[in-house]
């Protein structure tokens, strides 16, 4: 469309407002989220070797850098500009925000990718955000903190020591089931097991970056060993899907 009607102007205002304030609130959120740990590191009197932060950050980056970049690209067509700034600050996108948005869109007969769908999604994510903030404040902030103060010390000790193993056992299964990529799963198991049980015991200095090594090796192998016959089909389907979303 070349002529700017009143309706277009209203939507342009919406885009401008959500882009400006979405970005601004996200930048403020980002800074506040860094202020807490920065206080601990620089001003609390704890002796922290700052090169350790860089090392730790690099190890995390080696593992997750791909996902930092790919996730925003993946969610953009589904969420639209405005909701992007909500979703990546509120978190828990795939397990909470997306389902909320989709259910709300179908409740008001708005299709994803349309303007109606975009507005419905913003409202739904706003509703979800409010519920989420209050349940976190009440059940984790107040009741959780109280609960931790009254549970016996031997229970706390067990939770602290074994929580990571308990989280990872379930998360591994969840990742396998939700991704449904048999080939990549097998490659990931073989590569990770070789890194953890063979490479690191042989060369202990690699332990720092063992996860990053496993991730990069798996990603490269999974790419070269991917199922190419399925790819052509996916290509054309995704391109079509992207085209319809663009409108």
């Amino acid at each position, binding site marked *: 469309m070349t002529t700017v009607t009143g309706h277009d102007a209203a939507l342009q205002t919406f885009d401008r407002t959500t882009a400006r304030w979405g970005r601004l609130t996200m930048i403020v959120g980002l800074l506040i989220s860094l202020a807490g740990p920065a206080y601990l590191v620089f001003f609390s009197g704890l002796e922290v070797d700052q090169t350790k932060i860089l090392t730790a950050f690099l190890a995390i980056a080696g593992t997750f850098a791909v996902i930092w970049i790919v996730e925003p690209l993946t969610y953009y067509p589904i969420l639209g500009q405005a909701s992007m700034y909500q979703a990546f600050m509120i978190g828990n996108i795939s397990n909470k925000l997306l389902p909320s948005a989709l259910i709300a869109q179908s409740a008001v007969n708005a299709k994803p990718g349309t303007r109606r769908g975009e507005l419905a999604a913003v409202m739904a994510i*706003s509703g979800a955000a409010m519920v989420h903030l209050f349940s976190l404040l009440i059940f984790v902030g107040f009741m959780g903190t109280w609960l931790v103060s009254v549970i016996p010390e031997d229970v706390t000790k067990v939770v602290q020591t074994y929580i*990571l193993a308990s989280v990872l056992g379930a998360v591994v299964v969840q990742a396998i089931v939700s991704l449904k990529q048999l080939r990549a799963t097998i490659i990931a198991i073989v590569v990770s097991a070789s890194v953890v049980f063979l490479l690191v015991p042989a060369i202990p200095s690699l332990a720092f970056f063992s996860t990053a090594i496993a991730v990069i090796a798996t990603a490269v192998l999974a790419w070269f060993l991917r199922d190419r016959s399925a790819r052509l089909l996916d290509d054309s389907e995704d391109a079509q899907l992207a085209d319809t979303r663009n409108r």
Partner: protein
Amino acid sequence: MHIPTAFDSGSTDILAAANTPILWICALGVFAVIIVQTLIYVRAVRQAAPAVGMTSDELKTSFRTGAVSAIGPSLAVVLVAVALLTVFGTPAVLVRIGLIGSVSYETAAASIAAGTMEAELGGPTYTQSVFAVAFMAMSLGGAMWMLATLIFTPILKRGDAKLRRVNPAVMIVVPGAAMLAAFFALGFAELPKSGYHVVAFFSSAAVMGACLFLAKQLNLKWLREWALGIAILTALVLTYVAVSSGLFAA
């Protein structure tokens, strides 16, 4: 010279450092920013709605539907978050696991960070200094997600064909494989620590598998949402029983 405070680099009393008032203020600050953002957005939607023929009732329905469908998933997140309170303290759990990030990425990041200092989360090597570095590093990691969003969203909005035309196979295969490898590598690294770690890891995996299987067979959506919390709690209970009974005691 060291002024005696709640802070002591070598102390393993993580919560003394992790629950300090300043961290609480920062956590509540993030809550406030999200509330402000929501108010601005809702106002913007109200003004734009007539242009696409959406009634005020439809907007209310969308908001309410979004809120109601978030109740289950939110409480499921709460359950997992409470289990992690003793490791990260309340403010860090609220911001990192409750909001910006998610359970899996943030615990993975913290564990990787602790690993670079030859320490283990929750173990005797998990001192206040290690916590501070791990918290800083996981927060920087979370900031990268936001930074990527801030950079890519305007570019995508302008409809940059190059970004949209990234080979879809790359977008599906590579991140999936990276995620699987990250969780497998971290999970496997837990196993040699002790027999109890093996119990925790495999009981959690088994319960998760069972929950997801039942959820699919019986079409129970709530079970899928709660599976992670149920698996973690069951694994912790079983591990506690194993520890108490001295199963692997030397």
